[in-house]
């Protein structure tokens, strides 16, 4: 099981790298869906034997939302906006990848310094969570289009979810479902926001919102 868990975690980091390096928004949505499915599989691989039914229910909910519903919402927003790629990010793709490497090393370093009370069977879970969080934040800051920023938000949330899995053993089901509901509403609202940005500026470049200042 530890091999399965480590493979999942390594794949999570790799999807983070892919998101940092890809310019096509459609591909980014697909990769983030894959990442969502991976995070949904994580609690199943973590083996909390006694909580199996609760864990699998949560896993199915996460996979369903992040692997199917969010990509559908994002793809419909993308289709309306008539944009297929991020043209001029604030930080280039090569530089983003190197930032990704820095984040990775930084999160491993942070993990050794923090001494968290980790409940998980793998040492990797916390560093992966930190690295996903920093990747997500970086995507929000360094990309222009609203779509990439929404994807960055999802990556950030995946990181927080991993962190929760590692540190809090057995969070109440209701709480987890509440968080999922919140993300669902957030992505829904962001989809509407993208639609409005697109209608106002003929583009989903969120940077143009600064033109609204008086």
């Amino acid at each position, binding site marked *: 099981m*530890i*091999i399965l868990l480590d493979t999942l975690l390594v794949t999570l980091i*790799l999807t983070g790298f892919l998101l940092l390096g890809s310019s096509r928004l459609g591909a980014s949505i697909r990769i983030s869906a894959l990442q969502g499915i991976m995070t949904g599989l994580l609690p199943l691989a973590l083996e909390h034997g006694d909580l199996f039914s609760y864990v699998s229910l949560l896993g199915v909910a996460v996979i369903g939302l992040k692997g199917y519903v969010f990509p559908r919402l994002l793809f419909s927003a993308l289709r309306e906006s008539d944009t297929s790629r991020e043209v001029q990010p604030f930080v280039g793709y090569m530089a983003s990848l190197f930032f990704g490497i820095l984040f*990775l090393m930084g999160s491993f370093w942070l993990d050794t310094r923090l001494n968290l009370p980790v409940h998980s069977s793998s040492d*990797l879970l916390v560093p992966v969570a930190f690295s996903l969080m920093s990747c997500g934040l970086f995507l929000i800051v360094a990309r222009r289009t609203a779509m990439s920023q929404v994807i960055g938000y999802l990556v950030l949330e995946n990181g927080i979810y991993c962190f929760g899995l590692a540190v809090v053993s057995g969070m109440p089901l209701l709480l987890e479902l509440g968080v999922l509901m919140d993300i669902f509403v957030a992505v829904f609202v962001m989809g509407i926001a993208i639609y409005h940005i697109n209608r106002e500026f003929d583009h989903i470049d969120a940077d143009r919102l600064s033109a609204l200042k008086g």
Partner: protein
Amino acid sequence: MNTLSILNLLAGLILAPLLPGIINRTKAVFAGRHGQPVLQTYFDIFKLLRKGAVYSRTTSWVFRLSPVIGLAAVIAAMTLLPALSAPAPVSFAGDLILFAYCFGLLRFFLVAAALDTGSAFEGMGASREVQFSALAEPALLLGLAALARATGSLSLTGIFSASAGPSAGPALALVSAALFIVFLAENARIPVDDPNTHLELTMIHEVMVLDYSGPDFAIILYTSSLKMWALGALLVNVLFSFLPLHGPAAVACVAGSMILLSVLVGIVESIMARLSLLKVPQLLAGAVAISVLALTLVLRFTS
């Protein structure tokens, strides 16, 4: 040094020109053509060896020296390479750095000779070769560092005879992925460069050797197939390092896997298009990222 390691080295020296033939045959099968003979590279080398060489008047001794030095560097690298548990003819602590920089020496002289011809076209190819290998080299070295750390040995023979624990599985898979990208980039295969586009502005490796003719070009052809064999054998060693093979079986396994690897390269070339020139550094940076990840994982697991 024993007979087995000599056998391994000889297998590489003799079978290496087979690899481009197998790649071309795989591509031909994919395209529904009959294709050139599998032994075409051997025929080319023997034909070129019988011809005379023509040297441009602008070139100097660097141009004539570089094929020989390149060939020597690649053969030196191959003597450091074991076949799974069969030891390499030469091995000492730290030989993995020598292995990486033998290719550096080969590249340096190839680039120097290309610049020596004074042709703008070759200078452009040299610039691209150096640019891409500057990114491929960290990926190769960091991958080797991860292997060294996982097995606690600093020589290639030690790395591949000691088996890393099962916890290093994901790290080994990552190193293999990074090495595969380095293999494709260093040998100028398709996602990085298309070896079939002679005299077009997209090529990297082929353009640097345009001024060579006769025996010199034969040596260049042989050197590039040896390079493909050496880097491919490194990848195969990493992939199959968990197999408990000993003796001639290990040598046969490496040689057989090299043929499978060239079929794989042929398939990659048939189903993928070459990346645009600006995307290639991104791919190589991805390889570096994968290597760093592998090294971080290994450091984490073994500390």
